[in-house]
């Protein structure tokens, strides 16, 4: 493959490198999202000092308690789902799961080695295994983790040998076509074994997400306490039903560039419509003192987020909420009331969420998150009021138009609207607000398709791709994204042209931009195109992005 790679910044672009905030499409002084890059955190994650990593996990004050004391709530037993008595009782009443593991402990290797060769497991692009630090299987992306006790034992041994013997940390093992990446976090060991083109950092990030998903279900406090009490605890009991969340999260991470960029996608809406929606929420909820966040989402896209003053959400917490809503069909049946822990916001405790769809004919889901576990009824009331207001102001129609990708909207088919034929695909992230926009928004049903595809395989295929899908484009960006976020020698601008396509990756203080052009396009042409593209995004920014940071 003829490929030229130039990491140096071309002169014609240099002058733009530190463009004014005013010129950065989507930038605004205050952000609803916490724009801290996950990439930096991942670097500490990958730090080789065990002490340092451990410290990160344990010391953290509770934001939830802070809010409770501010609004004058006695901090009740919010944080902990389980008293230790419950836990013991629970374990006693579940002989089944522990039996299974014990059985597995006995019939060593013979069967299992065969199992490792079974079609369920071989030839997968990426495996993810989660086990306890005692070596007990907790989750496997493919196959039956029960039968993987042997493998988990080996993983545990590898990790602990490096830790105990060398006072070091096992980060990865690479073979010719495969990398295994390890992440030890609290009482868990997470491993990704991948043949994809994802970098070690990207894999660690995914493992961190998987860990956070578990924390989101249990809280870190509970997770730690369980294993302090019983090192051998079979966590699958408590995670029963939550495997689906991890499954789906792993699929999303491979498909949705939001994870790659650590950003949140917004549902493009006319500025006025979004403003009306936001105001409907504020005017209804501003008297509810314990409400921390009101979030309206649809199809993994944010419609609006209203927050308690001082508090913002991290994109990765929003991603977990997206995943929860996407994975829980039951929210469509009725109003729900559920505990949810947002690890970046407060890993030690649960928020309580009133979750409901706005109306039968609108796929927008409203989450009202509070620190008060008895707040269901007032929030239920608030939801109905909000739904009425949205109906009255015709916001439902605007949301549905955007979700159905109505042809009239410029954001439905941006490339056509922008009208630069050499651009095949692009993705743009505004750094100060951690929001992203791509030329081909992933639609609702297509994500469903991915799930079906994934069920059928996840196998490595060598089919020749005729027409690239948005996912293929995003996969191609991984390598560039990795170079741009490289901790040691980060690239600022990459231009690579070959007979298949031309890819440009560019990071400034204000944004990150990845564009795929036709093959063998001249640099001069791409400069013009990029200027034009940025102008278009700038012009549409009020529709594409949330440009304010409303509070109650």
């Amino acid at each position: 493959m003829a490929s030229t790679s130039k990491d140096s910044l071309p002169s014609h672009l240099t002058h733009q490198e530190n463009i004014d905030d005013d010129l950065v499409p989507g930038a605004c002084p205050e952000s609803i999202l916490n724009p801290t890059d996950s990439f930096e955190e991942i670097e500490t994650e990958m730090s080789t000092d065990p002490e340092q990593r451990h410290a990160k996990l344990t010391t953290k004050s509770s934001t939830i308690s802070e809010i409770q004391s501010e609004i004058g709530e006695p901090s009740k037993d919010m944080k902990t789902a389980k008293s230790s008595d419950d836990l013991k009782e629970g374990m006693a009443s579940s002989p089944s799961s522990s039996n299974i593991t014990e059985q597995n402990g006995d019939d060593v290797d013979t069967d299992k080695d065969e199992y490792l060769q079974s079609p369920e497991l071989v030839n997968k692009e990426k495996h993810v295994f989660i086990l306890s630090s005692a070596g007990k299987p907790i989750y496997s992306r493919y196959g039956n983790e029960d039968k993987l006790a042997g493998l988990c034992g080996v993983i545990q041994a590898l990790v602990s040998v490096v830790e105990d013997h060398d006072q070091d940390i096992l980060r990865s093992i690479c073979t010719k076509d495969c990398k295994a990446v390890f992440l030890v976090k609290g009482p868990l060991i997470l491993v990704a074994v991948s043949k994809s083109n994802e970098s070690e950092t990207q894999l660690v990030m995914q493992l961190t997400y998987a860990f956070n998903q578990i924390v989101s279900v249990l809280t870190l406090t509970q997770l730690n306490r369980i294993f302090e009490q019983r090192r051998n605890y079979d966590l699958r009991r408590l995670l029963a039903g939550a495997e689906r969340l991890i499954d789906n999260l792993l699929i999303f991470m491979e498909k949705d560039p939001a994870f790659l960029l650590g950003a949140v996608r917004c549902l493009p809406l006319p500025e006025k419509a979004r403003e009306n929606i936001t105001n409907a929420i504020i005017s209804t909820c501003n008297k509810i003192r314990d409400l921390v966040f009101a979030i309206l989402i649809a199809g993994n896209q944010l419609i609006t987020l209203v927050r308690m003053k001082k508090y913002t959400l991290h994109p990765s917490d929003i991603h977990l909420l997206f995943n929860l809503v996407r994975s829980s069909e039951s929210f469509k049946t009725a109003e729900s009331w559920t505990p949810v822990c947002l690890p970046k916001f407060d890993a030690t405790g649960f928020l309580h969420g009133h979750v409901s769809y706005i109306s039968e004919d609108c796929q927008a889901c409203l989450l009202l998150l509070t620190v008060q576990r008895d707040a269901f009824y007032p929030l239920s009331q608030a939801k109905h009021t909000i739904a009425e207001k949205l109906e009255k102001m015709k916001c439902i129609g605007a949301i549905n138009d955007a979700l159905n990708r109505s042809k009239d909207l410029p954001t439905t088919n941006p490339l056509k609207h922008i009208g630069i034929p050499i651009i095949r695909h692009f993705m743009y992230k505004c750094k100060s607000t951690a929001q992203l926009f791509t030329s081909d928004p992933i639609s609702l049903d297509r994500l469903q398709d991915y799930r079906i595809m994934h069920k059928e395989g996840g196998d490595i295929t060598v089919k020749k791709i005729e027409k690239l899908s948005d996912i293929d484009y995003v996969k191609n960006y991984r390598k560039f994204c990795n170079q741009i976020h490289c901790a040691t020698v980060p690239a600022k601008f990459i231009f690579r042209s070959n007979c298949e396509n031309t890819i440009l990756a560019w990071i400034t203080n204000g944004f990150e931009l990845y564009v795929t052009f036709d093959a063998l396009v001249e640099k001069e042409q791409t400069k013009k195109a990029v200027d034009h593209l940025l102008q278009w995004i700038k012009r549409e920014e009020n529709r594409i992005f949330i440009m304010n940071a409303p509070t109650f």
Partner: protein
Amino acid sequence: MKVIEAKIVVLGSQGVGKTSLVVRYIGKMFSRHISPTIGASFFTCNINLAEARVKLQVWDTAGQERFRSMAPMYYRNANAALLVFDITCRASFAAVKGWVKELQSNAAGPLVLALVGNKADLAAARAVPATDAARYAAALGAPYTETSALRSAASRRGGCGGCGGVGGRGARGAARLEPAHAARRHPAPALLLAAAAGAAGAEVSAGGGRVELPAWSLHTPRADTPRPLCC
């Protein structure tokens, strides 16, 4: 007319069919693809009794273990608890006993209990003898009914061959409910709420379109049992 508010909490292991039953009963929507409940779901429905209008609030809880500790939040203020198990799953019956113990030691006020054995359509795979369940219910002073959310659903769609002849009518004892006939006059939740509201004598009005929502077709012995009344 008097308006009574009553809260019912539905408890039971994961996958026994709590949501299926509630959705069947509330009749707001029929779904064959009910997925596991997350946290708890809140349903309301209004029922007109002879002398009162009842606003029924139903908390359908999640059976998944991780939500277990949230249960007190829902049963604390309830007037009645519907304890559901799956007749094909012994462990789910054992779990009901666990719930009863917990309710007895934790419930704040008087709580009316009712025991429901679901999935009666799977009688061939029955693991909990009806007599055991009935005896246990009787000891609690609770009514015991066997039902099938699925079969009711099928009958609602107007045809279901081959699932008649279901056993488990043998609910004998103090809490016995006559099948079909009694079920129509006293659909379990209505019975519960009547008791809960201290109006135990009240007849659930089955005729005249006064029951606004389809009543729970409990213990319908044959598939062709007419669907209970509806608005």
